[in-house]
């Protein structure tokens, strides 16, 4: 008994030493801050798993930003180099990734991952290393009440404010036309639920009755029973707090039950390029909030759409724009502060962003002390075979169709 035990102990010691040797060598290559060196930007993104679809979109946005900036001579005369790790949509991984990027790879800057669930843990890593953290996807309220001082959300509005224009519009309708009952179904995800509940709060305050309120976990695949409940309650309007596939599934399940609401609003899913095909082109009248439009008149947007299309052979969507915007925000801070490395520089970047406004492809952004942006989303609607901006009035491409035609 004793001798195998001792042998094991040796084996443990040996393997631990080997581990040290194996990992110690590759540790500090990213150091050294000469001005000719590239600026290395560390990113962890969900390239596989639940959020791989939007994750890849954000990745393209980052890549477009790096390429467009580098073609113009880089930042502070230094080229931008992206170091992207895959976090499998997994909170354990995302923390280990940023730990590795900051501690081991010694990247100069870090920017955020996708999905609110992953933003909070990764922002904490960045905070504890004293790094600036601009992120493209943490839109839910709880991101901003964690007391982060280093976090900035690079988009026009947080989730709860996405439907503000729609709520105002509906409540301004004459009493006879206003929808009187609404069904809500939301994924148990801070972002998706935030959009639906933001609208719910405003409509309830305006006297519109809630008849169904369902929350489902992210891995739900069978929407038959949720749809059955909604269809049985026969509300005027259905609101889906969805990501992508869940929104598609819910719409298909509702259509299988032949339920025809006067208004249907779903977050995220309807703006996806695959959406129409996924629900068999029965898209008529579906509403969706969006933070980005290719036709938006902001100065840098035209360049972005043009060069992005040239680089990827397709026009950018909201996820891509979010990634690009994040790059623009970090880039502006770096230009203004005149530095990009770990250490004191990070605090300069943070201070600059807290007191300035940045022009981006989604408009001018500024933040409050918690890093929350101050704005609202546009509302789009599927009309014919195209999705068009219908709200707010000053940006609309078409008039809102209400009540919506049958799907």
């Amino acid at each position, binding site marked *: 008994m004793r001798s195998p035990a001792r042998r094991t102990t040796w084996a443990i010691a040996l393997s631990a030493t080997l581990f040290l040797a194996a990992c110690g060598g590759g540790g500090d290559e990213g150091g050294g801050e000469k001005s000719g060196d590239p600026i290395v930007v560390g990113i962890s993104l969900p390239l596989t798993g639940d959020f791989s679809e939007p994750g890849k979109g954000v990745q393209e946005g980052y890549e477009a930003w790096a390429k467009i900036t580098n073609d113009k001579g880089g930042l502070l005369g230094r080229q931008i180099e992206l170091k992207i790790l895959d976090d499998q949509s997994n909170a354990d991984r995302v923390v280990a990734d940023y730990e590795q990027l900051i501690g081991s790879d010694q990247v100069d800057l870090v920017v955020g991952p996708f999905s609110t669930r992953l933003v909070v843990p990764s922002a904490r890593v960045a905070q504890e290393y004293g790094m600036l953290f601009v992120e493209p996807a943490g839109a839910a309220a709880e991101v901003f009440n964690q007391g982060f001082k280093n976090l900035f959300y690079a988009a026009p509005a947080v989730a709860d404010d996405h439907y503000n224009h729609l709520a105002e519009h509906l409540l301004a309708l004459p009493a006879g036309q206003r929808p009187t009952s609404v069904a809500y179904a939301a994924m148990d995800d801070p972002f998706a639920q935030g959009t639906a509940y933001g609208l719910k709060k405003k409509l309830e305050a305006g006297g519109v009755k809630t008849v169904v309120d369902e929350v489902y976990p992210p891995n739900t695949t069978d929407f*038959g029973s949720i749809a*059955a409940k909604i*269809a049985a309650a026969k509300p005027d309007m259905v609101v889906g707090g969805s990501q992508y596939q869940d929104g598609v599934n819910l719409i298909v399940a509702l259509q299988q039950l032949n339920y025809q609401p006067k208004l249907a609003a779903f977050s995220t899913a309807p703006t996806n390029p695959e959406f129409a095909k996924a629900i068999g082109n029965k898209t008529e009248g579906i509403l969706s909030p969006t933070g980005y439009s290719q036709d938006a008149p902001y100065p840098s947007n035209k360049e972005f759409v043009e060069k992005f299309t040239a680089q990827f052979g397709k026009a950018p969507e909201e996820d891509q724009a979010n990634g690009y915007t994040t790059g623009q925000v970090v880039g502006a801070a770096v230009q203004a502060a005149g530095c990009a490395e770990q250490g004191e520089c990070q605090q300069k970047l943070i201070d600059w962003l807290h007191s300035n406004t940045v022009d981006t492809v989604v408009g001018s952004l500024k933040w409050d002390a918690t890093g929350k942006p101050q704005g609202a989303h546009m509302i789009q609607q599927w009309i014919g075979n195209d999705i068009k901006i219908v709200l707010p009035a000053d940006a609309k491409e078409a008039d809102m169709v209400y009540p919506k035609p049958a799907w």
Partner: protein
Amino acid sequence: MPSGALLLQSIILGLLLGGLYALLAAGLTLYFGIMRVVMIAHSAFLILAAYLAWWTNDRLGIDPLLSMVVTVPLFFGAGVLLQRGLLSRLRPVTLTMMSVLITFAIALIIEGLLGYVFSGTQRRIQLGYGTESFNLFGARVAVVKLIAFALAAVSLAGLYVLMKRTQFGWALRATIQHPDAARLVGIDTERTAGFGFGLGLATAAVGGTALSLDTTIYPSLHWHWIGPLMAIIVVGGLGSVPGAAAAALVLGLAQSLLQIPMGATWAQTVFYVALFATLAVRPQGFFGGRLAQRF
């Protein structure tokens, strides 16, 4: 109080779901009957078949149902190989435990390969008739769900006929009931056991195709199936095919009805509550025969 229409709708949805559960649980029961093996990878094969059906439709543009022409024989062969190549080589003393680990490992491998080949993105077959439905006493029955149910029902009936009416079914039942005696009367139990496994896995191929018609699939989905299925076979009494089918219908219906007051997530717990209750009150299951008592 839920309306009558909603109740009827839920009952129909529950029966349609229960049919699929019954087919899959029948496969699991078959393995257990033959070798006392709990086949964790059963639902991984289910998802694999669903992916193959999706792929057939997405890449080749043909109806997903046609993929069964390939997947059913393929899975049958895989089942025979699995039994002959791996499970029958385990030490008999630790067979039950180790077979769980082996099939668990296979499930991980399948999940990993699916993720590697098709990525973790959720997939769904886009069918022309995907949103079609018809009216039945005021409830809506989706065409795709009905096709899935019909597939399950036909396969179960086929399985029943095969077990009761054919020479092979006779040999298989003999092998399940008393392998030593079966050998004595001249049945090649090894071969029969292998074919039995193939048959079990073929149910996964049919089930997967049925599943793919109306659900989103992703590689780790199989965990959400194996839990309810294992609960079903324990409640039904390990090793009893009719028991598993009855438990599947009852629990599928219960899940669907409980969704009305409890919501989708809590309703799923009915399987595990039933599982723990069965083990605490009646470990041999509610429909189980002689076999179950030993495990």
